């Protein structure tokens, strides 16, 4: 049975819900003034959560059940969590092979929306994918793509369009509202793109290091001269890693290492002895404590502007 709330109580509840982490489905708890219940939207990462909440506002209830301390790209939900996904009005997938658990889960295909499907030709194949051969099926690779597509703001804007379309398909009566909000968000992403382009212009082909190979779309968009390591921010690299870095620096004399999160102090200090400064560019696959998606992207742009200023001085 649907529960009806007085408007004031409903607004109060909405504020509480908006301030709480969106981890549990709550689509049946509220009813909109027009009698509709909010659309139950499930997503696979924080950027899509942000896009859906910005576009859908109070007309949607967005759930992103991944714990805050995991990378959603490599998260595997429990069957009970998948059962919750199955009940959603729409499931927003990032596409490009992001969140591989979705390939092994039973999800309602008619309600799944691949937000990167419209730019499939722009997906970046992962070059170090291992080809293997066994049994009668012959040689095969698992055909992986780089999947953090939103790090190219122009692609993120297309994902925003896909999210708006998905919400409009589910609730045609609100399509014009969704479209207006989508255009506002796309405008904000366009401004972010301009800012990142301005920040990376002085960097030019200055050698850069990235701590992990998750920045393919950023690197391609802004034509960065980057090499990716396999270093974790919360782990001390091994001697082998340090030796490999020193060898790499001979051919790729980078002065900046861009991390997914702040590295250990000892690591940052040792890097400094090699003439390498550390900055954080949070891919924002999961929610950040420092702010929402656009806030974090603003911080990321500021980090690149620091590098740009240094490159300008150099």
């Amino acid at each position, binding site marked *: 049975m649907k529960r009806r709330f007085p408007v004031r109580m409903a607004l109060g509840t909405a504020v509480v819900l908006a301030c709480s982490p969106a981890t549990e489905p709550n689509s049946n708890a509220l009813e909109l003034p027009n009698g509709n219940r909010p659309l139950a939207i499930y997503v696979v990462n924080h950027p899509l959560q942000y896009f859906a909440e910005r576009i859908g506002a109070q007309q949607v209830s967005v759930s992103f059940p991944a714990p805050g301390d995991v990378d959603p790209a490599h998260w595997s939900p429990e*069957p009970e969590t*998948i059962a919750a996904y199955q009940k959603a009005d729409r499931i927003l997938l990032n596409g490009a092979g992001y969140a591989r658990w979705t390939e092994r889960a*039973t999800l*309602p*295909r008619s309600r799944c929306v691949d937000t990167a499907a419209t730019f499939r030709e722009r997906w970046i194949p992962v070059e170090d994918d291992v080809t293997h051969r066994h049994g009668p*099926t012959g040689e095969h690779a698992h055909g992986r793509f780089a999947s953090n597509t939103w790090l190219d703001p122009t692609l993120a804007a297309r994902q925003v369009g896909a999210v708006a379309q998905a919400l409009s398909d589910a609730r045609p009566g609100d399509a014009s509202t969704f479209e207006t909000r989508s255009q506002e968000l796309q405008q904000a992403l366009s401004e972010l793109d301009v800012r990142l382009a301005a920040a990376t212009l002085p960097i030019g082909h200055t050698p850069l290091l990235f701590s992990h190979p998750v920045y393919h779309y950023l690197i391609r968009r802004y034509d960065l001269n980057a090499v990716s390591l396999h270093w974790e921010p919360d782990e001390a690299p091994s001697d082998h890693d340090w030796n490999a870095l020193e060898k790499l620096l001979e051919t790729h004399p980078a002065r900046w290492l861009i991390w997914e999160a702040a590295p250990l102090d000892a690591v940052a200090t040792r890097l400094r002895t090699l003439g390498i400064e550390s900055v954080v560019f949070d891919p924002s696959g999961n929610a950040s404590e420092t702010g929402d998606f656009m806030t974090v992207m603003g911080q990321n742009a500021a980090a690149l502007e620091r590098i740009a200023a240094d490159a300008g001085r150099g």
Partner: protein
Amino acid sequence: MSGPLYLAWRYLAHHRIKTGILVASITLIAFLPIGLNVLVKQSAAELTARAASTPLLIGAKGSRLELTLNSLYFETEPPESMPYAEANRIAASGLADAIPLQIRFRARNHPIVGTTLEYFDFRGLRPASGRAMAVLGECVVGHRAARDLGVAPGDTLVSSPETIFDLAGSYPLEMKVVGVLAPVHGPDDDAIFVDIRTAWILQGLGHGHQDLSARGAEATVLSREEGRVTANAAVVEYNVITTENLESFHFHGDVDDYPVTAVIAVPHNARSRALLMGRYGGTDQTVQIFRPDQVMADLLGTILSIQQYVVAAMLGVSVATLAMATLVFWLSLRLRRREIETLFKIGGARSSVSALLASEVALVLLLGLTLAGGLTLIVQRFGAAAIRAVLLT
């Protein structure tokens, strides 16, 4: 019991064989046309209802009847398959929702239906216990199948190999039962439902194996070059999907090329239906689209025409049987002339003797018609299932 009725009853009880033959004749005369009519009408209603609730069926070119019976009743041999891309093509057209079906394997004589969650919504299937399948290797079992197999959520089921001697074929997969469906009194009650990708794993198109880059896998690796690992046939492939090995399961090649036996298309409206059917109209098409209700109507038309001949023949037989019964009664009266005369001589009134004879006829008719009614009720209860079993096997 009044005198004539009692005497009639005693007479019939004494001449059991003659009475039995008469009652059996009357029973058959009444039952055969009525029972057959009930049987055909009921079967027609049931077969038509499931076909009518399936708007459009798409499958590889071939026998439409076989495709319909496989897709709707899961009974016939699997028809030719077509690429999964057809399901995507229909969904991408925006004209209809597409529900793929891959019905090829069985587990202890129960069909394993590989499909998507949309099938459950489409057929109105709801778990009575447990939940829908959530990951590869899980299955949901129909009500009757669960009862026959003695399984409940938490149990496991092993798929049957396609052929016992096909050593190079697909291996049986141990599936985890996660739900049992509420009864719907149809073919879905007998089926075992899995994700369509689990059906492809059953077919050997997807698999999970040990990590070839992990420690301990050296014995299975023939060569390891830059970005290329070649394993020998000893690589361990999993025949049960667990939480631990789930991530190792993968599919080779383009999933669009993977096989499906049929796709149920649910058009959004009549116009969408017409447009969709038009798209498959070309003679160069390797797939066909059709309305299953029309296929079933053709089948039922054949059955009904056969029924008309059978009923006509039965009416002839009934007339002959009725004439025979009348003759038996008439001859019986001739044989009993002395007995009737004795009744008159001991003071029996003409009306009483007439009542006695009429009671005998009435009792025979009553017994015969009662038995015919009982048989008709049995046919009404079990006939549809019986004829479906006969038709589909």
